[in-house]
């Protein structure tokens, strides 16, 4: 069988467009990250989304949809203007907004807020929350444990006490500096100068495959990502 040149485009478009169409029909086609966090795999909350896997790339709309929280509640909790476009505002954008504070308010603050607001299991670490978020958690959950009440009291921050120097801050970092986030793999840490022994001393166990992300490993092993991240950042600091 011979194939003339004029039929080549037909074959190309038929295979590519037909294949893409079929992939769309079967739900395989995805050009963005699946915005569904991991689920609890044991206990009475098994099957529910785990807020600890909220990624910095999730928008406030994503968080509201996934955890059944009103978008205005999220905006109030993080002291954002009511007309903020929640479909564009990512949880990691909080870091830039509150960069003038001594403690970081960012994606991890959203994780903890969602967990406490919805009364889902959470490891309470050194994350801080705006006092508006703390008030909302207290208002929605009169049955908070004493441990949770104490933690909230110790970790609320007045975000209006210091006026921001600017709406946005530079997110650039010095050459070679690594910022640990949900996408950082163990190989990235090795490339940044940490040794396998140093990483394992933080993890308290053997390091997994180098292509795995630190965050995925922490989730799988039930380790608080923020604690691991902070310990690694201490090792990385000059």
């Amino acid at each position: 069988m011979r194939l003339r040149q004029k039929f080549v485009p037909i074959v190309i478009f038929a295979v590519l467009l037909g294949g893409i169409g079929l992939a769309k029909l079967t739900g395989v086609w995805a050009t963005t990250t699946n915005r569904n966090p991991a689920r609890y795999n044991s206990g009475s909350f098994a099957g529910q989304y785990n807020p600890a896997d909220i990624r910095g790339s999730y928008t406030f709309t994503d968080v509201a949809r996934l955890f059944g929280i009103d978008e205005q509640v999220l905006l109030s909790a993080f002291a954002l203007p009511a007309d903020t476009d929640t479909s564009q505002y990512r949880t990691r954008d909080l870091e830039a907004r509150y960069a003038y504070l001594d403690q970081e308010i960012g994606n991890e603050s959203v994780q903890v807020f969602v967990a406490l607001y919805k009364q889902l299991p959470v490891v309470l670490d050194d994350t801080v929350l705006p006092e508006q978020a703390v008030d909302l958690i207290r208002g929605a959950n009169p049955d908070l444990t004493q441990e949770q009440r104490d933690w909230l009291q110790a970790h609320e921050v007045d975000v209006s006490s210091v006026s921001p120097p600017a709406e946005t801050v530079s997110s650039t970092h010095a050459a070679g500096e690594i910022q640990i986030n949900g996408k950082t793999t163990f190989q990235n840490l090795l490339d940044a100068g940490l040794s396998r022994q140093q990483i394992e001393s933080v993890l308290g166990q053997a390091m997994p495959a180098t292509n795995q992300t630190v965050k995925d490993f922490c989730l799988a092993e039930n380790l608080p990502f923020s604690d691991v991240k902070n310990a690694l950042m201490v090792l990385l600091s000059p």
Partner: protein
Amino acid sequence: MKPAKSLKKGWPIRTWVQLVFFAWIAVLAVGKGLAEAGVDIPFLPEVSLHAVCPFGGVVTLYNLATLGRYVQKIHASAVVLMALVFGLAVLLGPVFCGWVCPLGSIQEWIGKIGRKLLGKRYNRVLLPRTDRVLRYARYLVLVWVVYVTARSGSLIFSDFDPYYALFHFWTGEVAPTALVILGLTLAGSLLTERPWCKYACPYGALLGLFNKIRLFKVRRRPASCINCKLCDRACPMNISVSTDTNITDHQCISCYACTSENACPVPDTVVVETRAVKRPAESGQTGGSL
């Protein structure tokens, strides 16, 4: 035997197909950039180039197999496209390189200027032996890219990728190394056809292997061949079509330039078909003379 036809004038159909894909990728890249800047264009999907790059599907396979996750920035669409392009390659060889890839297309278009400047010296700048050895360098690049991606789980190649640089050079997101490689590639296109494809493209290296097994191969019929060697001169990848019958060279990009529909002046002599052509020694036929 006399040539049966003169060469066709005007843009061949392949150029139109290349233009369509180049424009499509450019529109996606600009659309994504505008969307990130807060400018929404109706009907324009917000898709990153990584999502529609079939090579992303290749480099994420190890991560997918070992961790069940894609490499950063890669999505299911890249794996789907990888499978579709492999399907096309099994049928027609690397048509992706010759008809679709925008980086290949722009090298080809710049090469037209180089051809005007250098004349017959164009696409013949390296010593044949050096050139032949360098053609295998792209397999080293392929092994390196797959290895570092598998080890790190990161798309490290994007810091060196001239394709990504071509469509993002204005964004400030492109690594200087990628910009330098893009510059060298485009400048090199003034000296030789498709330098990136020939010597460095990891995806081209992988797709080139399909030339060995593709169903529709480029075939030369010695019985009607007049040994004019126009097919050799037309081949952008410098393949010696005139000395073989069934072209399985790993560098063929299925561009049809050598065929009787383009360069070959004798009808039905260089064709793309499934039926193998017997070698002269097997069939008792020899090529004619000019």
